[in-house]
Structures are given as C-alpha cells and as structure tokens.
C-alpha cells in the first residue's frame, strides 16, 4: 500500500514537472501538454537506426527509468518511510544515480550514430565532475544525523533545516543534481543546438517516450532527495506530512528547471575544471565547518 502511494506520487510529480518544463519552453501553462505529447509519441513511427547495437539500444531508456525509480525508492515521503527504508539509504541514492551514467553510455553507443556517441561520452566527462560533489555534501548531512538512514536524516532536521545549517553543501548538491539529470546548463548530452539532440536524438516513438519519462522521474527523484536531505522532508507545522513533501518537491523541481533557463551551456571540460579545482575544496571546507559546528 505504501509502495503504491509512493509510485503514484512519483508519477504525478513527474507529470507536474513535465507541465512545468513545457511552461518554461513554450511560455503557456497547458495542463494536458504532457499527456498529448505522450500519446503522440506512442503513436509515432519508431525508426531504428541502421546497424544499432540492439542490446544497448533497447536497454538504455529502461535502465534510465529503473535507476531513477531505485533512487526514489529509498527516499521517505512521510514518517512511514519510502518503499524500502535501507539502513544505508543516503549511500544507495548515489549507487542508483551511478546507473544514469551507464544508461546514457548505452544510449550513446547503441544507435551507432556520431552525435549520440559524442553526447554519451561527454556525459562521462560530466560524471567525473559531479561525482564528488554529489557524495561529499551527503557526508555532511549524515554527520549531523549520525546515521545513513533517510528517516533519521529528516528527523535530525527538526530544530533547523540543513539548508540553513549547511548552505554550502546545499549549493553544491543542487548544482550536482542539475548535472546528474543533465538539465540545462549541463545538458550537453542532449544538447539541442550543439549535438542535434545528442543522446536523445536517435530514439523515436515509444522509446523516446520512455526516455523522457525516465528523465522526468529522475528530476523528481533528485528534487525529493534535495528536500529529504536539506529541506526537512515532511516536517512542517499545519499541513499533513505528504502535503509538505509535495510542496517542497515542486518548489525544488521548479528551481532546478528555472536555473538553467538563464545560463549558457557549460562544456564538460570547463565543468571538470570548476568542479575539481573549486568544487571539491569547497566540499571539504563544508565538511570541516559542519564537523566543527557539530562538535561545539
């Protein structure tokens, strides 16, 4: 029962994020836009490229969807926990997000096309950049909660949210989650102008529908992760817990989609330089500061 509620919540969240994205792209709020585009994708012709690596071509969108769902499965939306409240939940999210990389590599290699290939390998460059930035802030969060259990992490924020306690960690985690879900400004793998659609280009018809759905679920999972780790999850005064979760997730998802709207696309070489030269020292500084504040 709990699992069904969580999955339903995720799908509704993914739908609302798709509505937000179409609002940002087209300028008009049209609630049925994702439903119509999903129907049109299901009906459109599925063009398979010449000589694809069939195994990878078919597996990639499904693996992306599974990775996003696994990441969301350990995140608690209410006091009863998520689908599976693992004792190492905070680490499991990173394990699941690592398969986003594998899925995009498969999606780049599978269709046997140049642009997709370049897009896939560029995402590997991005991964090396964001990997540290997505793990180290979580160490700071776990230090405060003294546990890797996600419910404990939310409960440790009853006094003050982590976004106030560890603002540097929040900023780094936010940037890293933009990079994981290849949203603009880190959307080089599916760059519309640069790579003619990149990784997403060679998928048509239902497979593209699955790819888009997987990406929306990934954005929702990352927004949920941000609220659980930094914004206090379901904690709040008046409304029921799931309502607070929903509000916070939608606010974070809108912020994620809006941020890239005003920034130019960042090359993975520049991202690597920035993350390794500036991001990791800042993450270590964050750990130091959090450690000192906890001990005082």
């Amino acid at each position, binding site marked *: 029962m709990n699992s069904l509620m969580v999955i339903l919540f995720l799908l509704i969240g993914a739908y609302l994020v798709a509505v937000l994205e179409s609002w940002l792209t087209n300028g008009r709020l049209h609630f049925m836009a994702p439903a119509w585009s999903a129907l049109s994708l299901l009906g459109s012709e599925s063009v398979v490229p010449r000589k694809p690596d069939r*195994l*990878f071509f078919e597996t990639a969108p499904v693996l992306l969807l599974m990775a996003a769902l696994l990441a969301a499965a350990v995140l608690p939306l209410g006091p009863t926990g998520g689908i599976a409240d*693992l004792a*190492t939940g905070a680490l499991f999210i990173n*394990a699941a997000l690592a398969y986003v990389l594998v899925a995009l590599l498969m999606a780049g290699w599978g269709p046997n096309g140049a642009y997709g290939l370049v897009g896939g390998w560029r995402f*590997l460059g991005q991964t090396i950049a964001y990997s540290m930035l997505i793990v180290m802030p979580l160490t700071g969060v776990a230090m405060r909660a003294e*546990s890797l259990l996600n419910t404990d992490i939310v409960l440790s924020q009853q006094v003050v949210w982590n976004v106030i306690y560890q603002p540097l960690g929040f900023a780094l985690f936010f940037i890293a989650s933009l990079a994981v879900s290849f949203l603009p400004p880190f959307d080089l793998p599916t760059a519309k102008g640069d790579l003619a659609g990149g990784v997403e280009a060679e998928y048509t018809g239902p497979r593209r529908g699955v790819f888009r759905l997987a990406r929306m679920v990934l954005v929702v999972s990352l927004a949920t992760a941000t609220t659980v780790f930094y914004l206090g999850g379901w904690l709040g005064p008046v409304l029921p817990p799931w309502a607070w979760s929903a509000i916070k997730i939608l606010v974070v998802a809108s912020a994620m989609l809006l941020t890239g709207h005003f920034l130019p696309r960042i090359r993975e070489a520049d991202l690597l330089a920035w993350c390794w030269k500036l991001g990791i020292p800042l993450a270590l500084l964050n750990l130091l500061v959090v450690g000192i504040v906890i001990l005082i």
Partner: protein
Amino acid sequence: MTLLSLQTLFIAFFGVAGVAFGVAVFRTASMMRSALALLFSQTALGAMFLAMQAEFLGVLQIMMMATEMSIMAIFMVMFMMDPGGLGEMEMTHQKRLSIFAGIAGALATAGIALFTEWGAVSATAPDAALQVRELGTELLGRSMLIFETAGVTILTAMIAATAVAMPALARKKPA
C-alpha cells in the same frame, strides 16, 4: 538436505549471474559489450553482498563499480582498434596455457573451499544499521592506521597516475 531458504536462492542467483557476465566479458567481440558485461558482473556481485546482509559493502560495490567500469569502457574505445567488434580480429595469445591456468586456478580454489573444515557457520548477522555504526567505529578507532594509510595511498596514486599520464613537457633550450 537442508531447506533452501530465500537467502540461498538469492545468493545462488546472483552468483550465477556474476559468473555468466564474467564469461561474457571474454566471449564477445565488441569491446563496449565486454566492458558493460564486466560492469553487470560486478553489480551482480554487489547484489550478492546485499543478499549476504553486508549492506554497506554491497551498496559501495554497486556504486563504485558502475563508475569504474564505465571509465574502463571509454579507455577501451580509446585504445582498441575495433571497439564495435564488427571486424573479425584475433585478440588472444597463448590460449592453451591460459585455459589450463584458469581451470587449474579455479579447481584449486574450489578444492580448498570444498575440502576444508570451516567450522561452525553462523546463522545470523548483525542488523544493517548496527553494522554501519560498528564499521564506522572500527574504521576510525581500531583500524585508524589502515584508514590513514589507505588515504595517503589514494593520494599518491592520484598524483602518480596524473604525472604518468601528462604529456612530456617541452624542454626549454638554454638561451
């Protein structure tokens, strides 16, 4: 015949999956498939660790091996002549020696595994949350020296790998 518990079933399933993917690494001609088969073999082993209730180690294995094997994939594409595997190329040498050595190694370790008296087998393992806490205490308490040495070794290896991989600097000629 002991009753096959769910744990045994999962361990067997993931073990067979790990070995099957491991065999696939060397049977396929496509380099990318080889690298990703190794990735899924390591993932199956990580799931096996989870089935053996070593939760932290399982999650760590799954996380680390995904990124490591993807990096191995890009190095394969960089360094190998036929990454797609569509040309027929001979990629092996000293076949008989290596098959013999492989079978000998596997039989030796399997023989030791089957014929040693391992002692009493414990039926329960600590709870996962307790394990994480105890592992942390062990890591920063009794095994602090090992932890620090590993940290310094990682730093050394990072510097060494970067230094080896950088292109040679152009030497300035004396004026």
